[in-house]
């Protein structure tokens, strides 16, 4: 049975043409006249032939099955689903028809914009040098870990091969460290949801290369012993890495560079309002202190007098982490956002993000406990452990029931250290009415769990499809038509 629109393949009829190939004053010659037959494709190619109007309707109908920030409240923890300003989309598109191999003298205005963004991001982070090359947050982490490796090799510190990651960290942290050839050691959080300083001390030794921290952490808690941790790591010759996924919680109030961090990645698609695109493209710039600058990926955008350059002559650079120079259009959207807000506006945005999160936390604590109570930053983690124990209603059920009530669900089952976790991040761009409405929806669900658990457990009921069978998807793998 299918309630979804038909696939493109099913709209196909042979002999239909969508759009015409540009003529340009040429009669197209058959490939067989121009190339030897053994270079040509003989395997049949079956692509959908669909008229333009049907293609339009196909995608418009598909988009109607989606939920985006422009649809409604999207409190997905650690993803910072803030409003994506439309002016950013408009102005960035003006740069879409530029080729990356245009000689630098012809793209000075663009390089100036990118350089300006770099300077602004350095001010926001309190760092000394930066690359815009990484394509995503995880990509930025990998870039940073490779730079750490190159730095350690260069200094002859080959024995430093351990990266420490708190148990509350994003999964990309250990995965990125492992890809850069480090051994990963996990350190447990304490009863307040913070890195346990004693446990950290216990694993710190001369082999420790990097401590990766997200601050505020994934529980929304600020690691208040950060200065002490920084000293402990630095005293051993190690580096302190800042995962910028949660920068929105301290934006304009405290800077990673001032907390003792040596390098940091930013998620332009979180803190700086660029859209998530259904899963990319993001952008994950990496900013560093002076001592790590030589290892930045190539090229580095620099200003030489009045001229901007894509500098490639960098002997200690790790190389490149992707082709060309980065997700330039995403960077321009972030710049438009920064220019809209300015320094004071960024600081206000940070404060209001924290205000929204704490307001919701206090409201939801009336009926759903927060895993680690007390002041949070941009997000907090509630737990449905009690509901599961008493009524058999799990976090997954609550998430699905929220979809019925017209909201996107929070991040669920993360961080891993909280049972039945609901990680809620409202961002600063939501109105008080929206927060209140979500809180009321959650309150209703908690009541439903007590009075009509089955209704919640069998949710969602009104979405385009209902709960999907993940096991079947894995066992009877069907990944193409």
């Amino acid at each position, binding site marked *: 049975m299918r309630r979804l629109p038909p696939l493109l393949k099913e709209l196909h009829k042979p002999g*239909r043409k969508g759009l015409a190939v540009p003529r340009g004053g*040429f009669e197209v010659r058959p490939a067989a006249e121009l190339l030897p037959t053994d270079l040509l494709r003989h395997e049949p190619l079956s692509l959908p032939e669909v008229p333009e109007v049907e293609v339009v309707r196909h995608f418009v109908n598909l988009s109607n099955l989606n939920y985006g920030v422009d649809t409604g409240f999207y409190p997905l923890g650690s993803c910072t689903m803030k409003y994506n300003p439309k002016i950013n989309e408009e102005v960035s598109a003006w740069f879409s028809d530029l080729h990356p191999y245009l000689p630098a003298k012809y793209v000075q205005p663009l390089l100036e914009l990118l350089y300006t963004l770099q300077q602004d991001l350095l*001010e926001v982070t309190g760092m000394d040098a930066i690359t815009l090359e990484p394509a995503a947050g995880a990509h930025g982490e990998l870039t940073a870990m490779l730079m750490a490796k190159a730095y350690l090799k260069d200094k002859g510190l080959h024995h430093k091969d351990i990266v420490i990651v708190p148990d509350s960290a994003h999964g990309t942290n250990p995965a990125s460290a492992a890809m850069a*050839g480090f051994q990963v050691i996990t350190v447990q959080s304490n009863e307040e949801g913070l890195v346990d300083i004693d446990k950290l001390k216990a694993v710190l030794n001369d082999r420790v290369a990097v401590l990766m921290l997200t601050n505020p952490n994934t529980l929304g808690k600020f690691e208040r012993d950060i200065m002490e941790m920084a000293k402990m790591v630095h005293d051993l010759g190690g580096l302190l890495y800042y995962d910028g996924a949660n920068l929105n919680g301290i934006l304009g109030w405290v800077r990673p560079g001032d907390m003792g961090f040596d390098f940091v990645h930013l998620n332009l698609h979180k803190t700086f309002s660029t859209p998530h695109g259904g899963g990319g493209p993001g952008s994950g710039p990496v900013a560093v202190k002076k001592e790590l600058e030589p290892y930045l990926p190539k090229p580095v955008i620099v200003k030489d007098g009045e001229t901007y350059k894509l500098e490639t002559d960098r002997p200690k650079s790790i190389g490149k982490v992707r082709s060309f120079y980065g997700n330039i259009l995403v960077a321009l959207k972030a710049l438009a956002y920064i220019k809209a807000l300015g320094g004071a506006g960024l600081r206000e945005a940070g404060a209001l993000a924290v205000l929204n999160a704490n307001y919701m936390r206090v409201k939801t604590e009336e009926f759903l406990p927060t895993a680690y109570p007390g002041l949070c930053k941009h997000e907090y983690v509630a737990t449905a452990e009690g509901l599961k124990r008493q009524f058999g209603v799990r976090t997954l059920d609550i998430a699905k029931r929220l979809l019925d009530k017209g909201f996107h669900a929070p991040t669920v089952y993360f961080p891993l250290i909280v049972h039945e976790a609901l990680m809620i991040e409202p961002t600063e761009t939501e109105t008080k009415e929206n927060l209140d409405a979500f809180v009321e929806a959650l309150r209703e669900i908690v009541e439903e769990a007590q009075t009509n658990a089955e209704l919640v457990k069998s949710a969602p009921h009104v979405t385009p499809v209902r709960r999907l069978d993940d096991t079947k998807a894995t066992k009877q793998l069907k990944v193409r*038509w």
Partner: protein
Amino acid sequence: MRYAPHSPEEVKEMLRAIGLERLEQLFDDIPTEALLKRHLNVEGGWDEERIRAYFRKAAAAMPDANKAVYFLGGGIYDHYVPALVDKVLSLPEFYTAYTPYQAEVSQGTLVAMFEYQSLICELTGMEVTNASMYDGASAAAEAALMAMRIKGIKRIAVSKAVHPDIFEVLHAYQVGQDFEIVEIPVLNGLTHAGALDELPPVAGLLVQSPNYYGFIENMPAFGSAIHEKGGLFIAAVDPLSLGVLKSPKEYQADIVVGEGQSLGNHMNFGGPHFGFLATKMEFVRDMPGRMIGETNDVDGRVGYVMTLQTREQHIRREKATSNICSNHWLMALASVVYLGLMGGSFKELGESILTRSTYLAEQLAKVGYPLRYRNYFFKEFPVHVPNATEVQSALAEAGYFVGPVIDENTLLVAVTEKRTREEIDGLVGLMEGLR
């Protein structure tokens, strides 16, 4: 401008609900010595019109493809982007959504991802692909890592005729992981097949076709040669060439990667675009990245979900196949729209490029700019010039952008389906005038 909606009264009311009086108190948990005691020194606070003016001034001062004539290549090309592509990518429910974690309200993205996977498999002849990678270069590097995982051999052979950025990315990965790259040299613009005779045991061989110089490699020969030695064959391809050129399946590729810009994406000064990575079903569990599978909901209706997630970082952490999390989905979506529109014309599109590039090469040869090497090409080729940088500069002054420069005497020239006969003749005339 500000995008936060709070009125001063609401701020007060919300602070009261929390039991606080001032916004500053929200940061009481931060050590005083770390707190920033000033505003960020960042210029801004601009209205929309000022933002427009700022960006317009910069954009207007540059020779983009709407003002100048591009014959630029080297991995990114001035291809035709149908009007509908940008419209679909601007649908808010697509571009303001995140990763489809909540499948029931993300079927739009998930269906399109399933279609994307199907189309990439169709083009390459492979059995399985993920829902996109960052770009062609990182996809190629991930494919190399994947081959080394599968074979358990920490050595990979790579043709020197692949895009130089692929080497740069592999070198970066080498900083972190202990593996060896065997470089297969280039002879007359093509990967030197003879060099494979001396090859030590490798996990695989990576060859790009058309290669960095635009030349079509003898892929079947490389496929057989590396298979005889027990390695995997990794092919890097231009997807737009696959309506005309032999499919990777036809030359026994095991992993296929590529840069997807040519399928409906603008040049974007090099990013964002998307990369793809496709392979055989037997290697599916070694593949990085997100994958979408078909299933049913509780009522038996067809639906789509992210699947085989146990390979991924959010579950496997340091043991994951890769650290990749977000991919470049929106750019991959462009390719689905593009192929939906161009499916019926896809072969003709390839032929129209081939027609133009053949014509341009012939005309340039007539006015004294022969091909650097006499090989078959698809949409770009290297020409022999007296001084590549000078020729490039002179043409640029006339509004014709050609390149990149390969070496002192070699200039790469690319021609897409957007170039008209008039523009091509214009380039030939200009170059004739430079002699």
